[in-house]
């Protein structure tokens, strides 16, 4: 079996590139916006920009995703933050929900 060169270790430091196992991550929640035929595309873009502080391009990308695919995942965040975003989107009367990221 061919050997690979071991990375140089600096005394006193421990290097790790290992990713945190998924089970160690905080449970995440997805903020989803669903399509409906009543909200104007310009309005939806505007709301995304206001609520998430996104640039126009990103807001339009998600708006089009909602329009063409029926929904768009806008954020993955902690339960509290996801709830906050859903409340904000619903204040603007958008059809938004949050779902566990399974």
């Amino acid at each position, binding site marked *: 079996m061919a050997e690979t060169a071991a990375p140089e270790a600096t005394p006193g430091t421990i290097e790790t590139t290992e990713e945190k196992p998924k089970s160690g991550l905080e449970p995440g*929640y997805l903020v*989803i916006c*669903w399509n*409906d*035929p*009543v*909200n*104007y595309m*310009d*309005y939806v873009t*505007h709301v995304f920009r*206001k609520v998430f502080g996104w640039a126009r391009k990103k807001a339009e990308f998600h708006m089009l995703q909602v329009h063409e695919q029926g929904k768009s995942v806008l954020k993955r965040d902690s*339960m509290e933050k996801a*709830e906050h975003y*859903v*409340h904000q989107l*619903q*204040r*603007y*009367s958008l*059809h*938004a*929900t*949050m*779902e*566990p990221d*399974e």
Partner: protein
Amino acid sequence: MKLIRITKGNFLFHLGKREKHLLTQVLRLYPRIPPATFRLSKSGKLPDGEANQRLLDESLAEQRAENRKTLHAFLTDQRRFTDTESGSRLSLSPSELEWLLQILNDVRVGSWIILGSPDQGIEFKLLNEKNAADFWAMEMSGHFQMRFLEAIEKREV
């Protein structure tokens, strides 16, 4: 309704006499979305789902009550609209404009729900004497929404 200018971030609009009447009529319809319309989750898989749903319902109900008060003050403020020969002028701060967008969209979405949440393009087929007022409210609120969004767009250019 036309945007005249944006000064120090504030928006100044001109409305014809009829337009002013229409805008105030539409705003008076608020709130139109039936309570408990919005769900926090579609799948129902959230921990403490019922309690969190209750919190959402309460938060939206509080907001509605607050909006009603603010709207009443808005509509009864004699200085809000300045009459001119050809109509009225309406001055709005950015936050007032943002708030009006929410009010108008509540009227629009609420009217659509009252109409039976029809799919795009079939509204005219459903139109009759009974629901014409709801259809009018949906279209009219959308009309003013778009004028306000255009004004916001101009500020950014």
